[in-house]
Structures are given as C-alpha cells and as structure tokens.
C-alpha cells in the first residue's frame, strides 16, 4: 500500500473507532499538483486525503484550533513532528492530545517549477521524530552540508551593505503577518503587535516599524525555531526570513553549544530561558 492509501485507511479507522475526533492531512487543490490542508471529522471524508510530493504546508498549527473537539490525528513528516514537539514543549498541547501518523518525506517540490522546495533542501530531519505509527518506510533525502550557508552570505557583507540589505527586505514587508500565523512557535494568546494599548509597534507601514516587527519576532522565536521554513515559504513578498532565523540560531550555537529545537519531547526549559553561572556573557 502507498503511504496515501495507509493514511486514508488509518484516518477512516481512527475516526470511526472514536479514538480521534479530527484528522488533519492534505487534499488536492484546484490546480495541477496543488495541495491544501484538509481537516476532517467525518470518516466518510477520508478518501479526500492525499499524500504526494507537493504537500507543502505543515499541519501542526491546526491542532490547537480543533483540540476542543477531542483528540486530533494528523500526518507528520519530520517538520510536522518537530512542530508538534515544539507545541508540547511549550505546553500548548499535551502528547496525548494528538495521534501521529508518521510518513517518510523525500522532500517536497514546488508545484509550478517541479524543483525541490527551498525549505526541503535545507531540511535536516525529513523523517518523523515522534509518531504513534508509521505509514510506510522512512525516506532518503540528502542533508545539506552547511546549515548556516545563507548566514555566511550576510556576515560577509560590510556594515553598510548589511544595513542596505535589511532595509531592502523590510521595505518590501506588507505586515500581513503570514510568517507569524503559520509559525508553530508563534503561540502567544495575544501577539505583541496586536497589543494596541501598549502600541509596541506602530501601524504605519515603513521600514522602521516593519523591521521592528520582523526582528522582534526573530528574537522571540529564537531558541524555539524548528527551521521548518514555512515563514519564508508563505511570505507573499519572498522575504529571506530563514536567513534571519538561522543567524540567531548560529549565534546561540556559538554561545551555548550546538542544539536543534523540537527534536525531543522534554520538560527542560529552552536555551534562552535558562541561566547558568558558566554561561558566556561577553555579549552583555
């Protein structure tokens, strides 16, 4: 059986048995090779589920929307499973809230160019890290040699070049907040940009406000970013957001030792929420 057939069969069984209330996967969109997230509660809809190499969206963020109905089943690849781990470690959901049908991911393709998605070429954990069962085998995928290749491009710039570079990025931002809304780390009940009372960020669209939003977000998800690359993929203005995320990750690696977010379920606080007397502090 193909992974898609297993996913359909298991979604149907899990919904019929009442073990889960909702199942999240993908369905086909209107256009060739287009997929879109699908959230179903009726076992009769399981036949709509698809799994192919064009499943670009991650799914974990939807869990919180439908959790009130009961346990949620969903398909997880490496990135989805890390997002689930993130949500559990951030105490947004519990492990027992979700039933995870793992699937090996060969890396997804852009439906228009048929080229691998950038986020997938950069992915280091394509197979699920946490799951309740696997729909088929793990998949093989090349792991990038240098996790921080893009960061080096920015670091090679002079200060003036870098200023211009950031300005050109944030001159384009339209502040649609898609990067925030797709992010499994962005789970604040009220985002700082919506706190109009405090007015942390002005509502004018200009480089200063946009950059303040963008960089604050980068710092806020700094030690939790699971590098799924969804923010960059969904950005309608194609801002190179992962460059910024990885710059922060690289600095943290340098300061506190190599780590990756969302690999294991753990009650340990994340890097930036702990303090040890031996921590390096020359940046203070």
């Amino acid at each position, binding site marked *: 059986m193909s992974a898609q057939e297993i996913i359909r069969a298991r979604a149907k069984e899990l919904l019929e048995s009442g073990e889960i209330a909702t199942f999240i996967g993908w369905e086909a969109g209107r256009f060739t090779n287009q997929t*879109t997230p699908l959230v179903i509660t009726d076992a009769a809809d399981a036949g709509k589920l698809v799994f192919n190499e064009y499943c670009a*969206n991650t799914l974990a963020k939807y869990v919180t929307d439908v959790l009130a109905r009961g346990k949620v089943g969903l398909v997880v690849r490496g990135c989805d499973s890390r997002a689930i781990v993130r949500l559990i470690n951030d105490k947004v959901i519990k492990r027992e809230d979700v039933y995870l049908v793992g699937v090996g991911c060969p890396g997804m393709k852009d439906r228009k160019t048929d080229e691998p998605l950038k986020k997938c070429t950069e992915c280091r954990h394509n197979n699920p890290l946490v799951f309740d069962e696997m729909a088929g085998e793990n998949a093989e995928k090349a792991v990038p040699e240098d996790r921080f290749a893009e960061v080096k491009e920015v670091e090679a710039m002079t200060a003036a070049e870098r200023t211009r570079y950031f300005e050109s990025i944030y001159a384009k931002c339209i502040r649609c907040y898609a990067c925030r809304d*797709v992010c499994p780390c962005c789970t604040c009940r009220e985002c700082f940009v919506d706190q109009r009372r405090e007015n942390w960020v002005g509502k004018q669209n200009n480089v200063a406000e946009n950059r303040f939003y963008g960089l604050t977000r980068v710092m806020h998800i700094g030690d939790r970013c699971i590098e799924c690359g969804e923010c960059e993929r969904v950005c309608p203005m194609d801002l190179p957001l992962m460059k910024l995320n990885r710059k922060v990750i690289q600095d943290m690696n340098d300061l506190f030792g190599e780590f990756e977010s969302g690999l294991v379920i753990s009650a340990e606080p994340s890097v930036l929420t702990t303090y040890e007397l031996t921590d390096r502090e020359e940046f203070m």
Partner: protein
Amino acid sequence: MLLSKQNLMPLLNSLASDVDVFVPTTIDGVKKFARLADGVEPDFDMINTTMPPKDLLFPQTQKMYHFDVDKNGSYHIHEYDESREQIVFGIRPCDMRSIVCLDEVFLTKGFVDEFYANAREKLLTVSIGCTQAAETCFCTSMGVDPIYAPNADVMLQDTGDAYKVTAQTPKGEAAVSAWSEFLSDGDAEPVNCDVTLKVSMEGVVDKLEGMYDSPIWENLSIKCLNCGTCTYVCPTCHCFDISQENRKKDGVRFRCWDSCMFSEYTAMAGGHNPRPEKLERERNRFMHKLNFFERRYGMSLCVGCGRCVEKCPVALDITRLIDDIGSYEVAPASAE
C-alpha cells in the same frame, strides 16, 4: 489610432518627464506598479502584479493631518494633501474594475473621502488589455473583459506590432491628443485573451442570503491562518485603520490598510469582539466580496484577478468556494 510597440518607450519617457508614470515592473523581486525612473524596466507582458495598484489611490500608509501646539498651548490641525498628477500605464482590466469598486466606496453614500477624491481626480488610467491569463485568472467569470476596461481613460489593446489606442473619457481624449507624435492612424483587430479558469456566479448572490449559518463557513475557515495576505494583495479590499504617532503634543494622524482577518480589527475596548474567531471573519470577508457589496453597490467586490488564490499560504481558494456555493443545497424552509 495605433501606437506601435517601438514608440511605446519613447512615449513613456516623454510622459515621465512631466508627471509620475507608474508601470508594472519587478522591484527587489516584488511585482508591482512603480514609478518609471532610471533602472525601472516596465514589463507589459507581466500577466499581473503581485501587489495591486490600489496604493496609487489609497496608500498603505497615508498621513491625513499633523497637529501641534502654539505658544499658548492651543492645538492646531494641518491637513496633508500629498496628491499629485499621476499616470498608471499598463493597468489590467481587472484592476480597472477594482477602481470602479473603490470609487463607489470612497466617493458615494453621502460622504466623499477627500484624500481618495484628490488622488483619483489627478490619476490618468491607461489600461492595457491582456493577451494571456494566468491559471488563477478568472476575470471573465466576474464580468470583466480581459481585453477591454470600459472605465479606463485610455484603452490600449494589443494587435501584434502595435496597440490600438482608444480614448474613452475627456481626460483620456486630452491625453491622447497630446501623444499624437507617437501615434499613427489606422485600426487593427485586438488579440484575444483566453481565460481558462471559469466559475459560475449564477445564483450565488441570492443563495448566500440563506447561507449565513451554513456549515460551509466552518469547512472553509478551518484551514485559514488569519493572516492578512489575501486582503493586502486584493485590489478591492479597502478597510483601513486610523492611528497616530506623536512626540508629546506634536504628532501625525494617519490611516493605514487594515485587514478584517485580524482579530484586533473588531476587538472593542471593553474586551467584546463581535467576530472573535476565524469562522466569523472568513464568513464576513467572503460575504462582503460576493454578497454584501453587491447588495449595497450593485456589483461584486471580487474582480477575478486571482491574486488571493495565488498567494494564500494555505491555498484557500475563492473559486472553489464559489463552486461550493453553487452546488450547496440550501435546506428548504420548514413549513410554518
């Protein structure tokens, strides 16, 4: 009248020496209308820009007035009028239709929005008919002709080596008479544009009247992320916020694009929010596009440009919704 394609750039350069001419182009990777200047390459073969041209009339951030205090401590308000003569050259018929919608909103129903009105009066619209459609284009289903924009001041239609030029308004006639050195007499048949994506709007407006509590909205909204992408790339979305920034008693009050997708949009000071969840917000957005606006202004607020279909992060697709509404069976009213 014909404008040979060889004469197009000379005409544009001549126009740009007097006024700001906005053309479709790609700047830092973003397809949008930008002011023709050194280094800006117009691209009239681009099917559609990512960002709509609405910001020429309704900027994402628009200063309305600034305020300050005099030496007696008394406030004074100083209005801004930053409107200036502008030409938008190469605007597509779908985007021209969006200006019909914006005109209705900002210029009718008792109040004229002076900021919009000033900019509108000073804008010359030169539309270029499409010769090819993107897979997401569905303008014909929304009553838009891809090769003809009836409300453009000047209509250019591609005939192969030249554009057929038609002045359609007094403003357009004045403009075209000044372009005479670039034009030649003659007529030619415009190239057609085949729009393959079609949806049926038949009965949709009326059907929606009875669908406010339909499960269709739950199924639709569940995948929505509540970002503002669809509203910001939409050529007709026009909601705005009014806010201010100040240093002590001097400051500026401005308006800026806002999005009905954001929870903060309708959140009231006391904490109540009449549209608290994405279901209510999605329903309001699509009802506004397909029903409310039709009821109020007699036209659809969707022009079929396909930008939201193209850019939605989760491929939430208004054309599929229209299909779903079409095939939705409204429960018969129970016998009283």
